[in-house]
């Protein structure tokens, strides 16, 4: 069932260890933006949440494992973006739009943490969607998958 949404609300992030990390509200709002965009494409995907606990778990995990942060801005930003992509794109907290939401959330977090002025990223070819789909399908050990996701996101910021 669709929720009523307001896509102009500000995104709420949390500052932890010098890095901006997502809140449940921010992730849900980005998902709403993805679903809203799909409506413009003529798609009727619902914006419903399949498992809110997964979103909460991601946000808690990012705060509960301080030893994962190195103090290196780029590394820490990649860690937060990778975990976010993993939990959303691979674990599917939403009914639809998980890959797109995971991808945009990860890019958004890299952007706010590494450059605060304008989008860092260049346009990319549609074939990138294939790589995102392959990562989201998983079929690998979580740590191996996280490594691949990190490599994928690293390419985005080194282009």
């Amino acid at each position: 069932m669709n929720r009523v949404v307001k896509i102009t609300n500000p995104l709420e992030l949390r500052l932890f260890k010098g890095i901006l990390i997502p809140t449940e509200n921010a992730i849900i709002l980005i998902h709403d933006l993805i679903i809203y965009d799909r409506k413009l494409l003529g798609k009727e995907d619902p914006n419903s949440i399949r498992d809110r606990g997964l979103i909460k778990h991601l946000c808690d995990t990012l705060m509960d494992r301080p030893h994962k942060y190195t103090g290196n801005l780029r590394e820490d930003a990649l860690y937060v973006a990778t975990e976010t992509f993993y939990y959303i794109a691979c674990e599917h907290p939403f009914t639809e739009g998980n890959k797109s939401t995971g991808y945009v959330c990860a890019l958004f977090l890299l952007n706010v943490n590494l450059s605060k002025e304008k989008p860092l990223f260049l346009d990319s070819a549609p074939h990138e969607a294939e790589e995102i789909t392959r990562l989201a399908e998983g079929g690998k050990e979580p740590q191996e998958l996280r490594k691949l996701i990190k490599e994928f996101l690293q390419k985005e910021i080194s282009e």
Partner: protein
Amino acid sequence: MKKEIRNKKEEIVFVDPRLVREIMKTKKAVLKELAYR
């Protein structure tokens, strides 16, 4: 306990959602492809 709540409030940062829209515009082709998968 009260201090903890106050600290948590101080750590919240609000970001304009237009940045997300700009990123989505930049990655329009990928997102369109993902929408049909």
